[in-house]
């Protein structure tokens, strides 16, 4: 029946820039608002006509929805809470020496070879090692489209009061070995622990206290077209994050001792980059990728679902003929361009593809101009499945 924004609370979480976001989409030409770089919050009060007991009493009900938005990479830090520095270092080294990561990690690994872990540690060496490691992570992301890039804040730090908290990297430590006091490894370990204690732990404590519904946005399409290794890495990142999620049915007791996620929606984004017929495939592929965590969620009596989602639809469906075959495509206006383009996203498989599927990588995904919206309240925005996603997440609360 109605909704209103609640004034931001005077705490450390800054409000979501709603006005700037609407202004960007209502501009001429419209453009995408800046992506999320820090934790933001918006609180809404929804007033609705209840179908439950309240309806018999003729009253209306109110639901306060608190939305927390943060960079998805930060979720990669969740598993760190359950790992020691030594375990994390060994896992990271094992990954860095394999596949497409190996050539990109060369400078960082060479530097570590020249600065052994048991050598006396000084902040300058730690800073250099950190910068080389961060560059390696950035190259993995930008050149190879990889996703399992820990710690999550190295590439998207947000607002951190003490940047020295980030100045660490994995060091080669044998199983069971302890870093000698005063060594470079001991300095790195102390910073890793401080990073977990000061940055990671408070962030996830806040989420665990407040969040009982979660949407996990996954760019399946980009991962699919970035090649076999990028896709496998994306899967590994998802598995790593989701293994650390706490699912469970909502109950009063659980609310008192920390909420658990009782509904989780795994959403494959960019649903408007594939034509209608393939959206089901995208959704099925998403469901397939998260089958194990979905089963875990269901075993804990939480509800899990997968969807193909575009919160703002920028394209329309069409057909074209490519290599003599009639195919479904999407048509849209690229951001900053004047001529429309027709985009064929390839064939989206319904299950993780076999080895023979992979060919040349495709990474030049078009960025389509969003439709221009009016900033008047109540006017809708074209979307794909956003209504269904909200229905899944809020249906019981709005009953």
């Amino acid at each position, binding site marked *: 029946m109605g909704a209103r924004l609640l004034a931001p609370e005077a705490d450390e979480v800054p409000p979501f820039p709603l006005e700037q976001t609407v202004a960007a989409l209502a501009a001429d030409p419209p453009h995408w608002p800046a992506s999320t770089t820090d934790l933001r919050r918006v609180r809404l009060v929804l007033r609705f006509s209840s179908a439950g007991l309240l*309806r018999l009493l003729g009253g209306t009900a109110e639901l306060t929805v608190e939305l927390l938005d943060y960079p998805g990479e930060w979720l990669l830090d969740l598993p760190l809470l359950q790992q020691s520095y030594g375990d994390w270092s060994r896992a990271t080294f094992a990954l860095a020496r394999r596949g497409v990561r190996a050539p990109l990690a060369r400078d960082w690994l060479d530097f570590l070879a020249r600065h052994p872990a048991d050598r006396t540690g000084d902040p300058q060496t730690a800073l250099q090692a950190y910068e080389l490691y961060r560059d390696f992570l950035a190259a993995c992301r930008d050149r190879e489209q990889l996703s399992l890039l820990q710690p999550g804040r190295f590439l998207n730090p947000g607002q951190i009061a003490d940047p020295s908290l980030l100045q660490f990297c994995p060091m080669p430590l044998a199983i069971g070995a302890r870093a000698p006091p005063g060594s470079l490894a001991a300095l790195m370990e102390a910073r890793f622990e401080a990073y977990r204690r000061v940055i990671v732990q408070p962030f996830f404590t806040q989420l665990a206290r407040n969040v009982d519904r979660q949407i996990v946005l996954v760019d399946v399409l980009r991962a699919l077209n970035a090649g076999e290794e990028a896709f496998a890495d994306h899967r590994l990142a998802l598995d790593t994050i989701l293994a650390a999620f706490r699912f469970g049915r909502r109950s009063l007791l659980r609310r008192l001792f920390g909420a658990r996620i009782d509904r989780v929606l795994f959403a494959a984004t960019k649903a408007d980059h594939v034509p209608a017929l393939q959206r089901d495939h995208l*959704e099925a592929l998403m*469901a397939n990728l998260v089958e194990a965590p979905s089963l875990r969620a269901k075993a804990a009596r939480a509800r899990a679902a997968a969807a193909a989602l575009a919160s703002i639809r920028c394209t329309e469906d069409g057909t074209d003929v490519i290599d003599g075959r009639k195919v479904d495509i999407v048509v849209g206006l690229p951001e900053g361009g004047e001529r*429309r383009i027709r985009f064929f996203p390839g*064939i989206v498989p*319904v299950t993780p593809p076999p080895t023979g599927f992979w060919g040349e990588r495709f990474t030049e995904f078009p960025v389509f101009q969003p439709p221009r919206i009016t900033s008047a309240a109540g006017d809708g925005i074209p979307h794909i499945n956003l209504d269904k996603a909200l229905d899944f997440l809020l249906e019981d609360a709005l009953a």
Partner: protein
Amino acid sequence: MTTETEAPRERLRPRILETEETGRLELNLQPPPEAHLPAPRTQRSRSPLRVAAAGLGILVLGVIGIDFVQFIDGAFAHGAGLGIAATAAVAAGCGGAVYWLGAELRGLWRLRSAERLRSLIPFALTGELKAEIDAAAAILAADPLLSEAVARYRAVREPHHSGRDALELFSRFVLAPADRLAEAAIRRAATQAFAINAISPTALLDTLLFAARALRLIREIAEIYGQRPGLAGTVHLLRRLASGAGMVGAVDLAGGILVQQLGGAVMERLSASAAESAYAAQKMARLGIIAMALCRPIDFRPGEVPSLRSLVSGLLKADRQ
């Protein structure tokens, strides 16, 4: 003998194709799916009739309860054996009433479940949709006429099927046979309405017989869709029928077309009473289609609503011959 097989075609890679078209796309908002939301409840003052009915109900229950107690008490006054027999008789009567109440509530619950499913399905995510359709299949599996169809649906549905696939399979394997059964029931009822109108000596008797046959048709259709409504369920269905007749606008449209066709080509050739009987049959068929729309666990999709013409045309042909 040689067999030529088509060489596997290379997988098409993603690509961007330039066009000469310029300008922004005009993307229209998708119309929301029809959810058949209940009309907002208007604030009504308590009806005096309802208050009186509730009071009278309490009075009747109280009198019956006291009568039972006195009846048992009196029987015990004549002897223990008679008292026990009276207690057993009252217990059997109460048990029967509770059983009837239970059956009524179960029927109502099934009806409500089907209605809830129908309201959820337009908004369901694909994964959830499968669960909703399976719940609808469980309702229809209780119907002996459709249990085989449900088993066939369950046999063909694979885990990799999307929600839309499941909906398609459910429509094809379960709802289509159920629709055929319902259509047959409608044809029977329409034929009888035609006959009732033709032979009924008075308008009042005609109306009463028509209403009784219509009620039977509604219950038949509800049973076909696995709902087995009791008295309360039937009353609920009738109330929904009265308030939700607009749900199947296509029926009215089809009816209009039929009337045009009948008006021009057929009706003129029929006698006045035969024309009235034809209209009665058409009304019964229209009622049947609306009942189908109400009782189906999933809304009709475009092209699935049976046309009035298909339900009553055979009847008219028979009449003309």
